[in-house]
């Protein structure tokens, strides 16, 4: 177990250094290089001495390898640069917004797991009956519906037409207040979760189906256990393990989905900050947010893998 952990953490560190490399490439993607980057950030009227000062302050006049190692150092010390548009360090902005996005992601993931797993089990127990087909079709439709379109439709129907929920997400400053305004959270959370409820219930259905064909299920039946016990104790527990891996694999996509959901519902999280940064050409914030989103994903999949190893002893010895 310890060996597996060390190996897996080592892998994660390599991926984070890879993320730094991508970030580095992004910084050097500006047509015209560092000078034009300085010009975009400082504005068209910046004088050559001002540009030279910007370059030396940000280490952009150093040799390219030195720049890369400085960047790696910055990422590991959470020094993400400075947003000239908002006049605040990127790290401060991120620390303000991150908890809200984590709340949105957490609630959506919880909702996904709570709905998708029973739904998948239900479909297996009723397989090839009309209810199974209906749910399959429904999950295909939800899977194919773009998150933003679903959000728009839900706002049209539930907020504008029926006035059941507000069309905008909570605008409060703290996470506690956002939670208190739960009515405004319903639409964003469901919008983000819908695609994953569809995907996960399909996966759960296959996984459970596969578990039911395993030898240990036959053994359990043969020794006379009740159907209920075989289904829920023997098959279900094994069918749940792949779901954890799926959760880890899906994390980057959910984070992308949060970006869309936050911009549809004007939810004051990291996705919206990122979106506004993209519109305002606030490149330090833009790239800083990408780094944080990537790091969060790496850490998330690391946790999922560790959980996987804890639950399934076979993994530890591979």
């Amino acid at each position, binding site marked *: 177990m310890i060996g597996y952990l060390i190996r897996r953490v080592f892998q994660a560190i390599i*991926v984070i250094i*890879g*993320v730094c*490399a*991508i970030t580095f490439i*992004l910084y050097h*993607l*500006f047509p015209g290089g560092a000078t034009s980057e300085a010009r975009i950030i400082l504005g068209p009227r910046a004088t050559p001495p001002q540009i030279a000062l910007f370059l030396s302050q940000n280490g952009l006049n150093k040799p390219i390898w030195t720049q890369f190692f400085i960047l790696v150092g910055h990422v590991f010390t959470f020094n993400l640069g400075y947003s000239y548009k908002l006049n605040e360090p990127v790290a401060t902005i991120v620390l303000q917004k991150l908890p809200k996005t984590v709340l949105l992601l957490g609630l959506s993931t919880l909702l996904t797991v709570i709905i998708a797993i029973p739904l998948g089990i239900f479909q297996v*127990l009723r*397989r090839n009956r009309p209810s199974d087909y209906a749910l399959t079709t429904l999950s*295909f*439709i939800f*899977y*194919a519906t*773009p998150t*933003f*379109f679903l959000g*728009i*439709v839900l*706002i*049209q129907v539930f907020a*504008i037409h029926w006035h059941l929920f507000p069309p905008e997400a909570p605008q409060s400053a703290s996470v506690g207040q956002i939670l208190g305004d739960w009515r405004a959270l319903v639409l964003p959370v469901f919008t983000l979760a819908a*695609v*994953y409820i569809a*995907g*996960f219930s*399909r*996966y759960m259905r*296959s996984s459970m*189906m*596969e578990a*039911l*064909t395993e030898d240990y299920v*036959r053994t359990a*039946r*043969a020794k006379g256990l*009740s*159907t209920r016990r*075989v*289904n829920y104790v023997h098959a279900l527990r094994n069918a749940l393990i792949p779901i954890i891996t*799926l959760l880890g*694999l*899906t994390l*980057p*996509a959910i*984070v*992308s989905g949060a*970006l*869309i959901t936050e*911009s549809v519902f004007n939810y004051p999280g990291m996705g919206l900050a*990122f*979106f506004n940064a*993209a519109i305002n050409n606030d*490149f330090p914030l*833009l790239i800083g947010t*990408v780094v944080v*989103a*990537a790091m969060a*994903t790496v850490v998330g*999949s690391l946790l999922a893998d560790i959980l996987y190893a804890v639950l399934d002893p076979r993994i530890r010895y591979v």
Partner: protein
Amino acid sequence: MIPLTGDLPDKEAILPDVPGMGAELPGVEVTEAGEAGGIGGLGRVIWRVFSENKLALVSIGVIVFMLLFCFVGPHFYVTPQANFVVTSVGQVLAPPSSQHLLGTDPNGYDTVGRLMVGGATALEIALLAAGIATIFGVFFGAISGYAGGAVDAVMMRIVDTVLSVPTLFLLIVIAAILHTSFWLIVFIVALAAWLVPARLIRGETLTLRTREYVQAVRAMGGGGSRIVARHIIPNAVGTIIVNATFQIADAIGLLAALGFLGFGVPAPGTSWGQMLSDGISYAQEGAWWLIYPAGICIILVTVSFNYIGDALRDAFEVRLQRR
């Protein structure tokens, strides 16, 4: 991008209808491959299994219809505001009528004409991006898997790294730094889409490279590039085609999301996602025809490609079982 695992027909066939009956016996797997065993070539077997899936056939119909609608339609459907080049300021936000089947948008463009133009852009970008990504991913994965060792490790860490950056974030940064154009968007969507084929083909290659025929080529002095290009990739063609279908579906969704967030083809061009984003504020005042048709088009095309991919996978799985 969740792996939408489809039905497992062989497993279902051996599962008893009533749980707990334990009717299955080892080795009595009645697969469709078994009955199809004696008939014709592989292509016919694949088509037989595929065509049994009625939803997939309907999906092909939908795709053909959409292709005709988007690429041939503009030649026949001519309104006073001839599709999207000419507008009429007098007829802004007109509701559906006999003259404009789905009304007009705030610029006076006919919505049906815009759907055709936007759909053509969306389909062109999605097909190009999925194609480029599949070709690149296949070679990347095959080389990585065949080379093994340090090369494989480095190549796969690259894939891991790009996979760990949430796609939309990465793509939007690139789109914001470089100015958007048709080919940049193709490149951006392809950048997200080559990772999964690369991983899948690497996995296939790892098993294929131990096969006897690969060893035979090596024994006869065939080089690595010949083995990869002539023997490994052709034998992974099932996996490649199935995955490419899913990549097209994903590309359409990703493209729509990019367009919705404001990173689409420059005006007067459009795509379905951009139409949706342009229409939202008017839709809240009742102009439903600006968002629902485009949204439904996106869903229809995505669902169809997913169904086709699912049916293809079943069909190719049968082929693999027959081997």
